[in-house]
């Protein structure tokens, strides 16, 4: 489904991604782990089409279609969804209006009729329950005054409403307490489907206890330095990144922190 070949990307002339190769088939869940600054978030943003980064080399295709030829909104309509690490607060635009506009943009793209306000409200309320988000949040400004956990649940709500082909989850577990982590994980697990690919980007192993990946990759210095099955995540948990020749000051501290919460 998703094929990334020799992807190089830079920001303001500094190369962040230095030749990424990755193949994800429909139905698979892949996790990308790595220390801070390794390029994980850059990869997510580049896939979604952020204009902050310049792709200097390589290719990305989704079901054979060259994503690099498409604008951000066109990629979204083709089924790319990025759950943001830091969801944006947009006061003055109601969450409901935002969600309905997005869903209707997708429907229009697929040649389906738009949903009217009442229909959409009913649908959105049901899906809100699935991620344990009070429907009152639909009436607030987009992410306005939401806690960290509420923002992440709102991201998963969007994924459930938009039903993407490729869901990229950027540090979806960061800032979540253990209850919220369960809710978010349940939401992500509900997204698992045989015609959908999921790419999880995470610093910590703990999310992978709840959403078990088929493959794990270690990203360091802008390249994938190691790939393996789900057991690789456990190995990283125990041994840190050091045995791979990767420096990470935070890794030991963070794995200690994440084990202490469990």
């Amino acid at each position, binding site marked *: 489904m998703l094929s990334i070949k020799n992807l190089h990307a830079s920001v303001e002339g500094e190369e962040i991604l230095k030749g990424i190769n990755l193949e994800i088939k429909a139905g698979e869940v892949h996790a990308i782990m790595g220390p801070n600054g390794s390029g994980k978030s850059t990869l997510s943003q580049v896939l*979604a*089409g*952020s*204009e902050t980064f310049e792709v200097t080399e390589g290719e990305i295709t989704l079901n054979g279609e060259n994503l690099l030829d498409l*604008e*951000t*909104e066109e*990629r*979204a*309509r083709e089924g790319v*969804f*990025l759950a*943001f690490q830091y*969801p*944006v607060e*947009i*006061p*003055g*635009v109601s969450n409901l*209006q*935002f969600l309905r*506009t*997005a869903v209707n*943009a*997708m429907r229009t*793209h697929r040649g389906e009729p738009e949903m009217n306000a009442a229909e959409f409200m009913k649908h959105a309320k049901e899906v809100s329950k699935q991620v344990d988000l009070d429907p009152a949040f639909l009436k607030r*400004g*987009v992410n306005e005054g939401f806690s960290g956990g509420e923002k992440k649940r709102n991201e998963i709500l*969007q994924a459930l409403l*938009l039903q993407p082909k490729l869901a990229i989850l950027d540090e979806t577990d960061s800032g979540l307490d253990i209850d919220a982590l369960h809710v978010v994980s349940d939401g992500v697990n509900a997204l698992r489907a045989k015609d959908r690919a999921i790419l999880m980007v995470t610093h910590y192993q703990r999310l992978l206890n709840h959403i078990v990946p088929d493959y794990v990759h270690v990203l360091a210095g802008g390249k994938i330095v190691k790939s393996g099955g789900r057991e690789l995540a456990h190995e990283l948990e125990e041994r840190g990144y050091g045995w791979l020749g990767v420096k990470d000051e935070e890794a030991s501290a963070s794995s200690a922190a994440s084990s202490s919460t469990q």
Partner: protein
Amino acid sequence: MKSAPTLSSAFLEPAGDFLPAPLLELRKQRGTALVDMPLPTRKTENWKYSSRHLKLSDELAATLPSTGKDGTSLSMPGYRVVFRNGVMVPEASDYPDLKGVSIQRFADLSDGEASGLAERMDNTLDSHAVQMARLNSARFEDGLYIQLDKEAVLDQPLFIVHEVTASSSGSAYPRIYVDAARHSQMTLVEEYISSGSEPVMVNTVAEFSLAEGAQITSVRLTLEGENVQHIGATGVRQAESSRFESHTVGFGGPLRRHDLQVRLEGQGAECKLNGVVVTQGKQHYDNHTSIDHVAAHCNSEETYRNIAADQSHAIFNGRIHIHQDAQKSNANMNNKNLLLSTGAEIDTKPELEIYADDVQCAHGATIGQLDKTSLFYLISRGIGRREANTLLTMAFINELVEQIPVEAVREAAQLRLNDFFDQTFEEV
């Protein structure tokens, strides 16, 4: 040294001799005082950004005909008075005889009523700060005098449609005076529209005098065309515990100028002034507001938003003057500005003069652009750029548009905003 430009004498020949004698007399006096009036220049502080857009050629001095076809205006679920080129059109107006509410055109006033009005006219405006309103006082041909009796409540909004017909060049001088007795209430909508394409000027004045406990809501919508210079002034005087609320929505033109002056003269009076301005192309819009806290324990709350696209220019100048005796004043002024293009310009200037020591006074002004991160977030959900930009721009003014208490105005403003968004934002 080049001498400063003065007002052409062509402007001092008013028409409309059907006014009652006391008003004709007042107009004549005001005209005499304007002989050789210096026109604002770049060096005139309150006109420094706008003087070059003020183009008073002799052709503009002509009186426009008061006959002609009505333009399209708001669909109005309320009472309606139509002015064409500054003269009331009775056959297009529709309002009932209401108990305690007197709505009269100047031309219909008895000499006694007219001399009462003449004594009060211009008493809400500082003629030095609002110099161009003086031209209205010398030229008005008709007007509307609204008197609310004690405790009278107008049950529906009164729409005043000011249409200017521009099939020839000239100018119009509409005028309103509202006298609200104790605890009376009304909502008044002024809508400014135009038809035709010759260069014209509208110079308009609205005055509000609020007695104790009176509550007036004033809504002002300017939708005139690219051939219309609009110079407007609104003056307000408030007695004890009265409340004045103003909602202005303005779209740009070659020159749009609005001076809004409020004097809080009785304890416990409060005002709320909201404004939205949208400019595009080479349009120019200049809002000058002034709030005088004269008495103690008064509140003022002011929120203005400017949006400027293309090479347009918007100005906000907000003055708050807290007089020596105005202890326990509470004044809040907030002006936020959105530049939608690198060629657009916005100037904002808060002016605070505080002479009392026990007051709460806050002001804030910002100028920014649409947030790229927010835009990325919206389009990453498949929302098109035009719609995403529209959502973000509406988010900037939604709060003010939603507060406009008259649905027909909200709808008319939204329609015009939609045109603006279509012309300003593009899909990639």
